């Protein structure tokens, strides 16, 4: 239903009127309830102790970023975690007087521990102040627990810090040892490697390779020269031989002819010219002569002109050429041998240079390992010294610690609201209660009271509502109601006054 606010207020007020008697009763109930609560409200006392983060004074600036000292911002969290440990709280419980509770029982102990946890507040009270507060309904207990909390905290902090720096130191020492070993190992590896691979440097090898390549070039050039000369010499020789061959062939023929002629002559001595063998021989001689005549005249000349000298010269030339040829051939052979040797060496050098690259790479890696290990090791050495300093600082308690600046006290005043508050609040609550009830009723009770409520349900014309007509009976009834209301009011008033009076006099 969308009823405008003004209408709702009117409805609420009308309902309040309709609920006259109910309202009167609610008034009384409200009044009494608040008064009762005020009377029986359990008193709570809070005690607190304030600790100050000890001034680090001279040492702090020196130790800045060397030794580790925690900042005050985390102290509350720190303190809570430290002090709320079950064993710590257990200790506190045992120190305090709980009025004869059986602390041996696990249940009881647990409940008390939970109670302390629930009622303790640890807070920051300024830059480097820490405040412990505990609330209880017994004054003395509040005080005792608070005191115990603060003391426990201080003790725990000392213990823990010592333990921490000892642990830190031990840990780092172990690390130092480990890395020392690592360093030694990598050092050894490096040394061994260097020893095994003393080869010359790469640049020397490259130089050598260049050298050899140059030599090979030279050899190839020589070889080409030789070949060329060999070719021409061989050509000469072939010419000579050709000539020689021809002339020797002519010589052979001539010789044969001479032989045969001799033979013929011989034969002629015995036989006459018509002897068949003689004829045959003659024919043969003629054949050979023809053949001879067909030959290169140069060659014949050579043969004919062949004198001892020229023969000897020819022979000398021929053998000269031949010896030159053999000289060249053996030179060539030598060069080839040299070449293949050089090529072998070149190949070796190439292999060597490749190997050298590998070696250098590995060397670089080993060196790097070594360097890294060495750096870490040095770093760890430094850290260990820092940890040692921290530890020593702790030992002398010159590091951060807490001092009690405001010790726990037995609280005199209760934290809970004083009775006067309830006393004054009672009439207000009593007045509000019926109003709230009336309004709540109107809101919750979904019945039609005003025309605006109808539209949501049916589509009909709504005429003006008919107001109530006060009749005589109404007046009488009203008077009756008023009597009831006044009665309740009188009762309320008396109760209120009575309670106030008795409380004032201390009877309650």
């Amino acid at each position, binding site marked *: 239903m969308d009823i405008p606010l003004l209408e709702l207020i009117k409805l609420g007020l009308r309902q309040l009127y309709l609920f006259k008697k109910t309202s009167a009763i609610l008034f009384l109930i409200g009044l009494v309830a608040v008064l009762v609560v005020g009377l029986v409200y359990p008193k709570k006392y809070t005690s607190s102790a304030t600790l100050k983060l000890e001034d680090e004074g001279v040492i702090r600036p020196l130790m800045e970023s060397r030794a580790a000292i925690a900042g005050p911002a985390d102290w509350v969290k720190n303190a809570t975690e430290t002090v709320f440990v079950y064993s710590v709280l257990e200790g506190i419980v045992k120190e305090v007087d709980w009025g004869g509770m059986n602390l041996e029982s696990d249940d009881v102990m647990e409940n008390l521990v939970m109670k302390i946890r629930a009622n303790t507040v640890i807070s920051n009270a300024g830059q480097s102040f820490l405040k412990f507060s505990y609330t209880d309904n017994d004054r003395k207990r509040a005080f005792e627990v608070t005191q115990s909390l603060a003391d426990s905290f201080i003790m725990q902090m000392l213990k823990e810090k010592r333990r921490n720096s000892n642990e830190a130191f031990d840990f780092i020492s172990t690390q130092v040892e480990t890395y020392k070993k690592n360093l030694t190992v990598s050092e050894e590896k490096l040394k061994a490697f260097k020893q095994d691979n003393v080869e010359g440097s790469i640049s020397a090898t490259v130089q050598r390779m260049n050298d050899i390549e140059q030599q090979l070039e030279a050899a190839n050039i020589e070889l080409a020269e030789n070949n060329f000369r060999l070719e021409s010499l061989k050509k000469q020789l072939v010419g000579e031989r050709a000539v020689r061959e021809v002339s020797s062939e002519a010589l052979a023929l001539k010789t044969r002819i001479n032989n045969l002629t001799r033979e013929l002559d011989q034969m002629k001595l015995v036989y006459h010219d018509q002897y068949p063998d003689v004829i045959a021989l003659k024919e043969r001689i003629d054949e050979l002569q023809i053949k001879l005549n067909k030959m290169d005249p140069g060659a014949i000349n050579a043969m004919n002109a062949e004198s001892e000298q020229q023969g000897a010269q020819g022979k000398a030339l021929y053998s000269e050429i031949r010896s030159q040829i053999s000289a060249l051939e053996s030179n060539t052979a030598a060069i080839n041998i040299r070449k293949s040797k050089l090529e072998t060496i070149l190949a070796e050098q190439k292999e060597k240079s490749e190997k050298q690259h590998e070696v250098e790479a590995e060397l670089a890696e080993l060196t790097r390992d070594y360097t890294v290990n060495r750096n870490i090791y040095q770093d760890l050495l430094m850290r260990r010294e820092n940890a040692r300093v921290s530890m020593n600082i702790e030992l002398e308690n010159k590091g951060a610690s807490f001092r009690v600046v405001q010790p726990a006290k037995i609280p005199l005043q209760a934290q809970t609201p004083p009775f006067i508050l309830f006393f004054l609040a009672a009439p207000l609550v009593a007045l509000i209660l019926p109003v709230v009830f009336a309004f709540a009723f109107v809101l919750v009770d979904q*019945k*039609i*009271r*005003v025309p605006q409520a*109808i539209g949501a349900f*049916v589509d*009909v*014309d709504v005429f*003006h509502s008919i107001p*109530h007509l006060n009749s005589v009976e109404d007046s009488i009834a009203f008077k009756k109601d008023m009597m009831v209301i006044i009665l309740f009011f009188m009762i309320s008033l008396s109760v209120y006054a009575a309670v106030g009076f008795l409380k004032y006099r201390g009877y309650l």
Partner: protein
Amino acid sequence: MKMSDQLVYINSANKPEIHSGKSIKKMAEVSEYTDQDKDKRKIIYPEMRNRRVVNNFRDLRNGLIEKAEGKNLTIMVTSVAEGGGSSFVAVNLAAAFAFDQSRTSLIIDTNLSAPGLDKIFDIKDMPGVVNFIEDSGIGLEEIIYASGVKRMRVLPAGQRTEYASEYLGSTQMESLIENLKNRYNDRFIIMDAPPLTDPASARQIAKLSDKIVVVIPYGKISGQELTEKLALLPKEKIAGVLINNEAIIRQF
């Protein structure tokens, strides 16, 4: 002053007669209620102190006249629940109509099982609707009486009966209303009907009416209930609803 001592016979002839405005004044009026009487009976009058009440009824009357478009209406007044105050509204609506010197109104108590007008007009046990239906010999004029209000007539329920819805649906009832309509063209007929908790009766009366006014008692019913109850009536005849604060029962 008891009404029963002073019966008024309107016209003994059974022929329907048309009365003009002048004849209204001639009707013998019984002694009127005093203002105090009216206050006691919760009947409105123009000079009454509570202006809001009288004006709201006037508005209701005017609204209905508008919807009438010139005709004389037969209006059914019912309520959503028992004790809704439909009698109160019906009587005062009739009274409002009677304010106008040229009009008269007739209020019929059609709540035959639990008549609501008896107390208001002291007409208990006087012959009325039931009698007319049961006894064909009874004429209209025998059952219409003067109320204590000028120009307002009342037709009681008559004897108590358990056959309410049957009677209401009978031909006699039909002819009763027909006759009433025809006889008095200047008369607005208002029927104080039983609440919608008796749907059968309500429906019968709805058949006989031109317009229906539904009374909603303050803070008694939910929107849901309203929807349900209104669905029992022919939609086109519903002139509208109104909330009756008069019916607020003094709550604790």
